[in-house]
Protein backbone atom coordinates (compact mmCIF):
# COMPACT_ATOMS: atom_id res chain seq x y z
CA UNK A 1 0.00 0.00 0.00
CA UNK A 2 2.83 2.34 0.90
CA UNK A 3 4.49 1.55 -2.40
CA UNK A 4 1.25 2.30 -4.20
CA UNK A 5 0.87 5.67 -2.47
CA UNK A 6 4.50 6.44 -3.10
CA UNK A 7 4.11 5.69 -6.80
CA UNK A 8 0.92 7.71 -6.94
CA UNK A 9 2.83 10.74 -5.68
CA UNK A 10 5.44 10.06 -8.35
CA UNK A 11 2.74 9.73 -10.99
CA UNK A 12 1.21 13.06 -10.00
CA UNK A 13 4.64 14.70 -10.14
CA UNK A 14 5.53 13.32 -13.58
CA UNK A 15 2.00 13.70 -14.91
CA UNK A 16 1.95 17.30 -13.74
CA UNK A 17 5.12 18.07 -15.65
CA UNK A 18 3.67 16.43 -18.78
CA UNK A 19 0.45 18.37 -18.21
CA UNK A 20 2.29 21.70 -18.12
CA UNK A 21 4.14 20.85 -21.32
CA UNK A 22 1.06 19.53 -23.08
CA UNK A 23 -0.79 22.66 -21.99
CA UNK A 24 1.93 24.81 -23.55
CA UNK A 25 1.57 22.92 -26.84
CA UNK A 26 -2.23 23.13 -26.67
CA UNK A 27 -2.34 26.88 -25.96
CA UNK A 28 -0.38 27.60 -29.13
CA UNK A 29 -2.14 24.95 -31.21
CA UNK A 30 -5.60 26.12 -30.20
CA UNK A 31 -4.83 29.67 -31.33
CA UNK A 32 -2.87 29.20 -34.53
CA UNK A 33 -2.99 25.53 -35.47
CA UNK A 34 0.75 25.08 -34.97
CA UNK A 35 2.21 22.04 -33.27
CA UNK A 36 5.40 23.57 -31.93
CA UNK A 37 8.04 20.88 -31.73
CA UNK A 38 10.55 23.55 -30.70
CA UNK A 39 8.69 23.70 -27.39
CA UNK A 40 11.34 21.36 -25.98
CA UNK A 41 14.08 23.83 -26.81
CA UNK A 42 12.28 26.41 -24.66
CA UNK A 43 12.78 23.94 -21.81
CA UNK A 44 16.43 23.58 -22.71
CA UNK A 45 16.86 27.37 -22.71
CA UNK A 46 15.35 27.57 -19.22
CA UNK A 47 17.66 24.71 -18.16
CA UNK A 48 20.78 26.46 -19.44
CA UNK A 49 19.69 29.68 -17.75
CA UNK A 50 19.59 27.78 -14.46
CA UNK A 51 23.04 26.34 -15.19
CA UNK A 52 24.63 29.70 -16.03
CA UNK A 53 23.01 31.34 -13.02
CA UNK A 54 24.59 28.62 -10.89
CA UNK A 55 28.00 29.24 -12.50
CA UNK A 56 27.62 32.99 -11.95
CA UNK A 57 26.86 32.40 -8.31
CA UNK A 58 23.28 33.66 -8.55
CA UNK A 59 21.11 32.03 -5.93
CA UNK A 60 18.49 29.51 -7.04
CA UNK A 61 15.73 31.79 -5.78
CA UNK A 62 16.69 34.38 -8.40
CA UNK A 63 17.70 31.83 -11.02
CA UNK A 64 14.16 30.45 -11.21
CA UNK A 65 12.45 33.71 -12.29
CA UNK A 66 15.34 34.39 -14.67
CA UNK A 67 14.90 30.97 -16.24
CA UNK A 68 11.15 31.55 -16.62
CA UNK A 69 11.81 34.93 -18.16
CA UNK A 70 14.33 33.41 -20.57
CA UNK A 71 11.95 30.73 -21.83
CA UNK A 72 9.08 33.23 -22.17
CA UNK A 73 11.27 35.65 -24.08
CA UNK A 74 12.60 32.86 -26.27
CA UNK A 75 9.06 31.73 -27.04
CA UNK A 76 7.97 35.24 -28.05
CA UNK A 77 11.08 35.70 -30.20
CA UNK A 78 10.55 32.30 -31.78
CA UNK A 79 7.07 33.39 -32.85
CA UNK A 80 8.25 36.76 -34.10
CA UNK A 81 11.18 35.42 -36.11
CA UNK A 82 10.19 31.96 -37.27
CA UNK A 83 6.42 31.49 -37.06
CA UNK A 84 4.95 34.85 -38.00
CA UNK A 85 6.13 34.60 -41.63
CA UNK A 86 4.39 31.23 -42.00
CA UNK A 87 1.34 32.08 -39.90
CA UNK A 88 -1.20 31.64 -42.65
CA UNK A 89 0.46 28.62 -44.19
CA UNK A 90 -0.74 25.06 -43.88
CA UNK A 91 -0.31 23.09 -40.67
CA UNK A 92 2.37 21.00 -42.36
CA UNK A 93 4.45 24.07 -43.25
CA UNK A 94 4.26 25.34 -39.69
CA UNK A 95 5.10 21.89 -38.31
CA UNK A 96 8.20 21.60 -40.50
CA UNK A 97 9.20 25.15 -39.52
CA UNK A 98 9.00 24.16 -35.87
CA UNK A 99 11.25 21.14 -36.52
CA UNK A 100 13.74 23.45 -38.21
CA UNK A 101 13.69 25.86 -35.26
CA UNK A 102 14.24 22.94 -32.87
CA UNK A 103 17.20 21.61 -34.85
CA UNK A 104 18.82 25.00 -35.31
CA UNK A 105 18.61 25.64 -31.58
CA UNK A 106 19.98 22.18 -30.77
CA UNK A 107 22.98 22.78 -33.01
CA UNK A 108 23.54 26.20 -31.44
CA UNK A 109 23.49 24.64 -27.97
CA UNK A 110 25.91 21.93 -29.11
CA UNK A 111 28.34 24.36 -30.73
CA UNK A 112 28.23 27.26 -28.31
CA UNK A 113 27.61 25.52 -24.99
CA UNK A 114 28.52 21.86 -25.06
CA UNK A 115 27.57 18.61 -26.68
CA UNK A 116 27.81 16.93 -23.30
CA UNK A 117 25.49 17.10 -20.39
CA UNK A 118 26.25 19.92 -17.95
CA UNK A 119 25.71 19.77 -14.20
CA UNK A 120 23.19 22.15 -12.69
CA UNK A 121 23.42 23.07 -9.01
CA UNK A 122 20.18 22.22 -7.30
CA UNK A 123 19.75 23.42 -3.69
CA UNK A 124 19.81 20.61 -1.11
CA UNK A 125 16.31 21.53 0.00
CA UNK A 126 14.97 20.44 -3.37
CA UNK A 127 17.09 17.34 -3.89
CA UNK A 128 16.28 16.21 -0.34
CA UNK A 129 13.20 14.41 0.85
CA UNK A 130 10.71 14.61 3.66
CA UNK A 131 8.76 12.11 5.66
CA UNK A 132 4.97 12.33 5.41
CA UNK A 133 2.82 9.70 7.13
CA UNK A 134 5.55 7.10 6.98
CA UNK A 135 6.34 7.81 3.32
CA UNK A 136 9.61 9.26 2.16
CA UNK A 137 8.73 11.78 -0.50
CA UNK A 138 11.26 13.67 -2.58
CA UNK A 139 10.94 17.42 -2.12
CA UNK A 140 11.23 17.79 -5.88
CA UNK A 141 8.14 15.59 -6.29
CA UNK A 142 6.16 17.78 -3.93
CA UNK A 143 7.51 20.84 -5.67
CA UNK A 144 6.34 19.45 -9.00
CA UNK A 145 2.83 18.77 -7.71
CA UNK A 146 2.50 22.15 -6.01
CA UNK A 147 3.91 24.06 -9.01
CA UNK A 148 1.58 22.25 -11.37
CA UNK A 149 -1.45 23.07 -9.23
CA UNK A 150 -0.39 26.71 -8.88
CA UNK A 151 0.17 27.07 -12.63
CA UNK A 152 -3.13 25.40 -13.51
CA UNK A 153 -5.05 27.61 -11.08
CA UNK A 154 -3.32 30.76 -12.33
CA UNK A 155 -3.95 29.87 -15.97
CA UNK A 156 -7.57 29.01 -15.25
CA UNK A 157 -8.08 32.35 -13.45
CA UNK A 158 -6.46 34.19 -16.33
CA UNK A 159 -8.52 32.47 -19.00
CA UNK A 160 -11.83 32.77 -17.17
CA UNK A 161 -11.60 36.18 -15.49
CA UNK A 162 -9.20 38.41 -17.40
CA UNK A 163 -10.31 40.27 -20.51
CA UNK A 164 -7.21 39.12 -22.39
CA UNK A 165 -7.70 35.56 -21.17
CA UNK A 166 -11.26 35.49 -22.45
CA UNK A 167 -9.99 37.00 -25.71
CA UNK A 168 -7.55 34.09 -26.02
CA UNK A 169 -10.37 31.60 -25.59
CA UNK A 170 -12.42 33.49 -28.17
CA UNK A 171 -9.48 33.49 -30.58
CA UNK A 172 -8.94 29.79 -30.01
CA UNK A 173 -12.51 29.10 -31.00
CA UNK A 174 -12.80 31.44 -33.98
CA UNK A 175 -9.74 33.48 -34.79
CA UNK A 176 -11.27 35.49 -37.64
CA UNK A 177 -14.30 36.59 -35.64
CA UNK A 178 -12.13 37.43 -32.64
CA UNK A 179 -10.19 39.79 -34.88
CA UNK A 180 -13.46 41.42 -36.00
CA UNK A 181 -14.08 42.24 -32.32
CA UNK A 182 -10.88 44.28 -32.30
CA UNK A 183 -8.76 41.58 -30.69
CA UNK A 184 -5.35 41.94 -32.27
CA UNK A 185 -4.00 38.79 -33.88
CA UNK A 186 -0.40 39.65 -33.05
CA UNK A 187 -1.16 40.32 -29.40
CA UNK A 188 -3.11 37.12 -28.91
CA UNK A 189 -0.52 34.97 -30.64
CA UNK A 190 2.39 36.59 -28.82
CA UNK A 191 0.44 36.08 -25.57
CA UNK A 192 -0.11 32.42 -26.38
CA UNK A 193 3.61 31.96 -26.99
CA UNK A 194 4.51 33.81 -23.80
CA UNK A 195 2.22 31.51 -21.82
CA UNK A 196 3.60 28.42 -23.53
CA UNK A 197 7.14 29.67 -22.77
CA UNK A 198 6.25 30.20 -19.13
CA UNK A 199 4.77 26.71 -18.89
CA UNK A 200 7.83 25.22 -20.61
CA UNK A 201 10.04 27.13 -18.17
CA UNK A 202 8.22 25.76 -15.12
CA UNK A 203 8.35 22.26 -16.58
CA UNK A 204 12.07 22.69 -17.28
CA UNK A 205 12.80 23.70 -13.70
CA UNK A 206 10.90 20.65 -12.44
CA UNK A 207 12.62 18.41 -14.99
CA UNK A 208 16.09 19.74 -14.18
CA UNK A 209 15.52 19.54 -10.45
CA UNK A 210 14.99 15.78 -10.87
CA UNK A 211 18.14 15.28 -12.91
CA UNK A 212 20.50 18.09 -11.89
CA UNK A 213 21.84 18.30 -15.42
CA UNK A 214 21.04 19.85 -18.77
CA UNK A 215 22.07 18.84 -22.31
CA UNK A 216 21.29 20.13 -25.82
CA UNK A 217 18.64 17.47 -26.46
CA UNK A 218 17.07 17.71 -23.03
CA UNK A 219 13.71 18.97 -24.26
CA UNK A 220 13.09 16.36 -26.91
CA UNK A 221 11.82 13.42 -24.87
CA UNK A 222 9.53 15.32 -22.50
CA UNK A 223 7.97 17.27 -25.35
CA UNK A 224 7.42 14.12 -27.37
CA UNK A 225 5.59 12.75 -24.32
CA UNK A 226 3.69 16.00 -23.97
CA UNK A 227 2.67 15.75 -27.61
CA UNK A 228 1.31 12.26 -26.97
CA UNK A 229 -0.47 13.62 -23.89
CA UNK A 230 -1.98 16.48 -25.90
CA UNK A 231 -3.29 14.06 -28.54
CA UNK A 232 -4.55 11.74 -25.82
CA UNK A 233 -6.47 14.60 -24.23
CA UNK A 234 -7.74 16.03 -27.53
CA UNK A 235 -5.44 18.29 -29.51
CA UNK A 236 -6.17 21.95 -28.93
CA UNK A 237 -8.21 21.34 -25.80
CA UNK A 238 -6.61 22.82 -22.69
CA UNK A 239 -8.47 20.65 -20.20
CA UNK A 240 -7.72 17.69 -22.43
CA UNK A 241 -4.00 18.49 -22.36
CA UNK A 242 -4.01 18.47 -18.58
CA UNK A 243 -6.00 15.23 -18.42
CA UNK A 244 -3.78 13.61 -21.05
CA UNK A 245 -0.63 14.71 -19.24
CA UNK A 246 -1.73 13.22 -15.95
CA UNK A 247 -3.00 10.03 -17.57
CA UNK A 248 0.29 9.52 -19.39
CA UNK A 249 2.22 10.15 -16.16
CA UNK A 250 0.12 7.58 -14.35
CA UNK A 251 0.48 5.02 -17.13
CA UNK A 252 4.26 5.38 -17.20
CA UNK A 253 4.84 5.35 -13.45
CA UNK A 254 2.45 2.50 -12.67
CA UNK A 255 3.83 0.36 -15.48
CA UNK A 256 7.37 1.00 -14.29
CA UNK A 257 6.40 0.16 -10.72
CA UNK A 258 3.99 -2.73 -11.05
CA UNK A 259 4.70 -4.47 -14.33
CA UNK A 260 6.37 -7.85 -13.68
CA UNK A 261 10.13 -7.78 -14.18
CA UNK A 262 10.03 -10.01 -17.28
CA UNK A 263 7.64 -7.57 -19.00
CA UNK A 264 9.56 -4.42 -18.09
CA UNK A 265 11.36 -4.28 -21.41
CA UNK A 266 7.94 -3.99 -23.10
CA UNK A 267 6.97 -1.11 -20.86
CA UNK A 268 6.91 1.59 -23.54
CA UNK A 269 5.02 -0.46 -26.12
CA UNK A 270 2.47 -1.42 -23.47
CA UNK A 271 2.14 2.20 -22.35
CA UNK A 272 1.69 3.46 -25.90
CA UNK A 273 -0.65 0.52 -26.54
CA UNK A 274 -2.89 1.85 -23.78
CA UNK A 275 -2.75 5.29 -25.40
CA UNK A 276 -3.75 3.80 -28.76
CA UNK A 277 -6.57 1.89 -27.07
CA UNK A 278 -7.91 5.09 -25.51
CA UNK A 279 -7.76 6.80 -28.91
CA UNK A 280 -9.53 3.91 -30.60
CA UNK A 281 -12.37 4.36 -28.15
CA UNK A 282 -12.25 8.16 -28.17
CA UNK A 283 -10.72 9.21 -31.51
CA UNK A 284 -10.91 12.92 -30.65
CA UNK A 285 -9.21 12.42 -27.31
CA UNK A 286 -10.47 12.41 -23.74
CA UNK A 287 -11.83 15.98 -23.71
CA UNK A 288 -11.88 17.16 -27.32
CA UNK A 289 -11.58 20.83 -28.21
CA UNK A 290 -14.96 22.48 -28.68
CA UNK A 291 -14.15 23.79 -32.08
CA UNK A 292 -11.58 22.56 -34.56
CA UNK A 293 -13.79 23.76 -37.38
CA UNK A 294 -12.97 27.42 -36.85
CA UNK A 295 -11.02 28.60 -39.83
CA UNK A 296 -7.70 30.28 -39.20
CA UNK A 297 -7.35 33.56 -41.07
Amino acid at each position, binding site marked *: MDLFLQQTVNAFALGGTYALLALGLAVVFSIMGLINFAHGELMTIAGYTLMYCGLAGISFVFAVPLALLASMLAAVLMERIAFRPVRNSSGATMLVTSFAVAMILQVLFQNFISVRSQAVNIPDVISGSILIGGMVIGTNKLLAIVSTIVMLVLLDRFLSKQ*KYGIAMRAAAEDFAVARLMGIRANTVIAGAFAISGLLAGVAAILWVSQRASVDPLMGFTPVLKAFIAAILGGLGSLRGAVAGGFLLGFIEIYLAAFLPAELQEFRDPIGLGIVVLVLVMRPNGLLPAASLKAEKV
Partner: protein
Amino acid sequence: MGQPLLQVRSLDVRYGAVQAVDGINFDVEQGEIVALLGANGAGKSSTLNALVGLVPTFSGEVIFEDNNITNIRPEMLPGLGMTLSPEGRRVFGTLSVAENLQMGAFGLRDPNEIAAAWDRVFDLFPILAERRNQFAGTLSGGQQQMLAVGRALMSNPKMLLLDEPSLGLAPKIIEQIFELIKTLNDQGVTILVVEQNVSMALDIAHRAYVLANGTVATSGAAEELAESSNLQNAYLGGA
Protein backbone atom coordinates in the same frame (compact mmCIF):
# COMPACT_ATOMS: atom_id res chain seq x y z
CA MET B 1 -26.01 64.46 -47.56
CA GLY B 2 -22.29 65.02 -48.13
CA GLN B 3 -20.06 62.15 -48.97
CA PRO B 4 -21.33 58.60 -48.48
CA LEU B 5 -20.36 56.81 -45.25
CA LEU B 6 -19.01 53.86 -47.23
CA GLN B 7 -17.69 54.00 -50.78
CA VAL B 8 -16.66 50.91 -52.66
CA ARG B 9 -14.75 51.54 -55.88
CA SER B 10 -13.91 48.88 -58.49
CA LEU B 11 -13.60 46.21 -55.83
CA ASP B 12 -11.92 43.09 -57.13
CA VAL B 13 -11.60 39.90 -55.08
CA ARG B 14 -9.86 36.79 -56.36
CA TYR B 15 -9.23 33.39 -54.87
CA GLY B 16 -6.31 32.20 -56.94
CA ALA B 17 -7.57 32.13 -60.50
CA VAL B 18 -11.20 32.40 -59.44
CA GLN B 19 -12.65 35.87 -59.73
CA ALA B 20 -15.25 36.18 -56.98
CA VAL B 21 -15.90 39.92 -57.21
CA ASP B 22 -15.26 41.71 -60.48
CA GLY B 23 -14.89 45.45 -60.11
CA ILE B 24 -18.06 46.39 -58.28
CA ASN B 25 -18.98 49.93 -57.19
CA PHE B 26 -21.47 50.94 -54.56
CA ASP B 27 -22.13 53.51 -51.86
CA VAL B 28 -23.87 53.46 -48.53
CA GLU B 29 -25.11 56.81 -47.28
CA GLN B 30 -25.18 57.77 -43.64
CA GLY B 31 -28.40 56.46 -42.06
CA GLU B 32 -29.34 54.07 -44.87
CA ILE B 33 -30.15 50.39 -44.93
CA VAL B 34 -28.61 48.97 -48.09
CA ALA B 35 -29.10 45.37 -49.15
CA LEU B 36 -26.68 43.33 -51.24
CA LEU B 37 -28.68 40.63 -52.98
CA GLY B 38 -27.81 37.84 -55.32
CA ALA B 39 -27.79 34.10 -55.82
CA ASN B 40 -25.31 31.76 -54.17
CA GLY B 41 -21.81 32.51 -55.41
CA ALA B 42 -22.74 35.93 -56.75
CA GLY B 43 -19.99 37.47 -54.64
CA LYS B 44 -22.01 38.91 -51.76
CA SER B 45 -20.08 37.38 -48.89
CA SER B 46 -16.76 37.85 -50.65
CA THR B 47 -17.60 41.54 -50.90
CA LEU B 48 -18.39 41.82 -47.19
CA ASN B 49 -15.33 39.82 -46.20
CA ALA B 50 -13.14 42.04 -48.36
CA LEU B 51 -14.65 45.16 -46.78
CA VAL B 52 -13.61 43.99 -43.32
CA GLY B 53 -10.22 42.65 -44.40
CA LEU B 54 -10.93 38.97 -43.86
CA VAL B 55 -10.12 38.24 -47.49
CA PRO B 56 -7.59 40.31 -49.45
CA THR B 57 -8.75 42.92 -51.93
CA PHE B 58 -7.00 42.31 -55.24
CA SER B 59 -7.63 45.81 -56.54
CA GLY B 60 -9.99 48.71 -55.98
CA GLU B 61 -10.69 50.88 -52.98
CA VAL B 62 -12.87 50.89 -49.90
CA ILE B 63 -13.39 54.26 -48.22
CA PHE B 64 -15.13 54.50 -44.85
CA GLU B 65 -15.76 58.10 -43.80
CA ASP B 66 -12.38 59.67 -44.53
CA ASN B 67 -10.35 56.50 -44.10
CA ASN B 68 -9.11 54.32 -46.89
CA ILE B 69 -9.75 50.91 -45.35
CA THR B 70 -8.75 48.79 -48.34
CA ASN B 71 -7.09 45.62 -47.02
CA ILE B 72 -7.40 46.86 -43.47
CA ARG B 73 -6.51 44.51 -40.65
CA PRO B 74 -9.88 43.35 -39.27
CA GLU B 75 -8.96 44.23 -35.69
CA MET B 76 -8.76 47.93 -36.60
CA LEU B 77 -12.41 48.18 -37.73
CA PRO B 78 -14.34 48.44 -34.44
CA GLY B 79 -12.18 51.42 -33.52
CA LEU B 80 -13.22 53.14 -36.76
CA GLY B 81 -16.89 52.39 -36.13
CA MET B 82 -17.67 49.40 -38.34
CA THR B 83 -18.51 45.85 -37.26
CA LEU B 84 -19.66 42.68 -38.99
CA SER B 85 -22.09 40.09 -37.76
CA PRO B 86 -20.76 37.16 -39.79
CA GLU B 87 -22.58 34.56 -41.83
CA GLY B 88 -23.66 31.59 -39.77
CA ARG B 89 -23.59 33.75 -36.61
CA ARG B 90 -20.29 32.36 -35.37
CA VAL B 91 -20.85 33.18 -31.73
CA PHE B 92 -18.12 31.90 -29.41
CA GLY B 93 -19.95 28.76 -28.31
CA THR B 94 -17.61 27.90 -25.44
CA LEU B 95 -17.90 31.39 -23.99
CA SER B 96 -20.86 32.59 -21.97
CA VAL B 97 -23.32 35.06 -23.44
CA ALA B 98 -21.85 37.81 -21.25
CA GLU B 99 -18.29 36.91 -22.32
CA ASN B 100 -19.34 37.07 -25.98
CA LEU B 101 -20.71 40.56 -25.41
CA GLN B 102 -17.65 41.55 -23.43
CA MET B 103 -15.53 40.58 -26.44
CA GLY B 104 -17.72 42.77 -28.62
CA ALA B 105 -16.71 45.71 -26.44
CA PHE B 106 -13.06 44.66 -26.47
CA GLY B 107 -11.72 47.93 -27.82
CA LEU B 108 -13.76 50.24 -25.56
CA ARG B 109 -11.87 51.92 -22.70
CA ASP B 110 -14.37 54.33 -21.16
CA PRO B 111 -16.33 52.51 -18.39
CA ASN B 112 -19.39 54.71 -18.96
CA GLU B 113 -19.41 53.88 -22.64
CA ILE B 114 -19.09 50.17 -21.83
CA ALA B 115 -21.95 50.33 -19.32
CA ALA B 116 -24.10 52.14 -21.89
CA ALA B 117 -23.35 49.44 -24.47
CA TRP B 118 -24.45 46.71 -22.06
CA ASP B 119 -27.66 48.59 -21.27
CA ARG B 120 -28.43 49.13 -24.93
CA VAL B 121 -27.89 45.50 -25.93
CA PHE B 122 -29.79 44.08 -22.95
CA ASP B 123 -32.54 46.56 -23.72
CA LEU B 124 -32.77 45.39 -27.33
CA PHE B 125 -32.44 41.72 -26.39
CA PRO B 126 -33.86 41.04 -22.93
CA ILE B 127 -33.36 37.31 -23.57
CA LEU B 128 -29.59 37.83 -23.61
CA ALA B 129 -29.71 39.42 -20.16
CA GLU B 130 -31.71 36.45 -18.95
CA ARG B 131 -29.20 33.98 -20.38
CA ARG B 132 -26.05 35.95 -19.70
CA ASN B 133 -24.30 33.14 -17.84
CA GLN B 134 -25.25 30.42 -20.29
CA PHE B 135 -22.75 29.09 -22.83
CA ALA B 136 -23.52 30.71 -26.18
CA GLY B 137 -23.38 27.30 -27.86
CA THR B 138 -26.47 26.21 -25.93
CA LEU B 139 -28.66 29.03 -27.26
CA SER B 140 -31.23 28.45 -29.99
CA GLY B 141 -30.44 29.62 -33.52
CA GLY B 142 -32.52 32.77 -33.18
CA GLN B 143 -30.95 33.63 -29.83
CA GLN B 144 -27.50 33.06 -31.30
CA GLN B 145 -28.34 35.46 -34.12
CA MET B 146 -29.43 38.04 -31.55
CA LEU B 147 -26.18 37.47 -29.67
CA ALA B 148 -24.17 37.88 -32.88
CA VAL B 149 -25.90 41.18 -33.61
CA GLY B 150 -25.68 42.28 -29.96
CA ARG B 151 -21.98 41.45 -29.91
CA ALA B 152 -21.44 43.53 -33.04
CA LEU B 153 -23.30 46.43 -31.40
CA MET B 154 -21.20 46.45 -28.23
CA SER B 155 -18.56 48.67 -29.80
CA ASN B 156 -21.20 51.30 -30.69
CA PRO B 157 -20.57 51.10 -34.43
CA LYS B 158 -21.68 53.77 -36.88
CA MET B 159 -22.09 51.06 -39.46
CA LEU B 160 -23.17 47.46 -39.03
CA LEU B 161 -22.58 44.80 -41.67
CA LEU B 162 -24.92 41.82 -41.50
CA ASP B 163 -24.11 38.68 -43.45
CA GLU B 164 -27.22 36.53 -44.01
CA PRO B 165 -28.94 37.30 -40.70
CA SER B 166 -31.93 35.12 -41.68
CA LEU B 167 -29.87 32.01 -42.49
CA GLY B 168 -31.35 28.86 -41.02
CA LEU B 169 -33.97 30.62 -38.88
CA ALA B 170 -37.70 30.07 -38.59
CA PRO B 171 -39.91 32.63 -40.41
CA LYS B 172 -41.20 34.10 -37.17
CA ILE B 173 -37.69 34.65 -35.86
CA ILE B 174 -36.60 36.13 -39.20
CA GLU B 175 -39.37 38.71 -38.89
CA GLN B 176 -38.13 39.58 -35.41
CA ILE B 177 -34.57 39.98 -36.65
CA PHE B 178 -35.61 42.26 -39.51
CA GLU B 179 -37.80 44.28 -37.17
CA LEU B 180 -34.74 44.72 -35.04
CA ILE B 181 -32.60 45.84 -37.97
CA LYS B 182 -35.14 48.58 -38.60
CA THR B 183 -35.05 49.60 -34.94
CA LEU B 184 -31.27 49.84 -35.04
CA ASN B 185 -31.45 51.94 -38.15
CA ASP B 186 -33.94 54.25 -36.43
CA GLN B 187 -31.36 54.61 -33.67
CA GLY B 188 -28.94 55.93 -36.26
CA VAL B 189 -26.93 52.85 -37.22
CA THR B 190 -26.16 52.63 -40.92
CA ILE B 191 -26.66 49.08 -42.15
CA LEU B 192 -25.36 47.01 -45.04
CA VAL B 193 -27.12 43.67 -45.16
CA VAL B 194 -26.34 40.68 -47.36
CA GLU B 195 -29.38 38.49 -47.84
CA GLN B 196 -30.79 35.57 -49.78
CA ASN B 197 -34.22 36.33 -48.40
CA VAL B 198 -34.92 38.96 -51.03
CA SER B 199 -38.45 39.98 -50.13
CA MET B 200 -37.61 40.50 -46.45
CA ALA B 201 -34.48 42.43 -47.31
CA LEU B 202 -36.27 44.69 -49.83
CA ASP B 203 -38.96 45.24 -47.24
CA ILE B 204 -36.63 47.02 -44.83
CA ALA B 205 -33.91 48.35 -47.13
CA HIS B 206 -33.83 51.82 -48.68
CA ARG B 207 -31.76 50.72 -51.61
CA ALA B 208 -30.36 47.48 -52.91
CA TYR B 209 -27.66 46.23 -55.23
CA VAL B 210 -28.16 42.93 -57.00
CA LEU B 211 -24.97 41.03 -57.70
CA ALA B 212 -24.52 38.38 -60.38
CA ASN B 213 -21.24 36.71 -61.27
CA GLY B 214 -19.28 39.18 -59.20
CA THR B 215 -20.66 42.32 -60.84
CA VAL B 216 -23.52 44.68 -60.01
CA ALA B 217 -26.33 43.47 -62.29
CA THR B 218 -28.84 46.06 -61.22
CA SER B 219 -29.45 48.48 -58.40
CA GLY B 220 -31.98 50.99 -57.23
CA ALA B 221 -34.54 51.93 -54.64
CA ALA B 222 -35.81 48.89 -52.76
CA GLU B 223 -39.44 49.55 -53.59
CA GLU B 224 -38.77 49.69 -57.31
CA LEU B 225 -36.71 46.53 -57.25
CA ALA B 226 -39.43 44.78 -55.26
CA GLU B 227 -41.89 45.64 -58.01
CA SER B 228 -39.72 44.51 -60.88
CA SER B 229 -41.17 41.09 -61.53
CA ASN B 230 -38.23 39.59 -63.36
CA LEU B 231 -35.75 40.22 -60.54
CA GLN B 232 -36.12 36.72 -59.13
CA ASN B 233 -35.85 35.00 -62.49
CA ALA B 234 -33.08 37.14 -63.87
CA TYR B 235 -30.62 37.26 -61.02
CA LEU B 236 -31.64 35.23 -58.06
CA GLY B 237 -31.70 31.75 -59.44
CA GLY B 238 -35.43 31.47 -60.15
CA ALA B 239 -38.37 31.78 -57.78
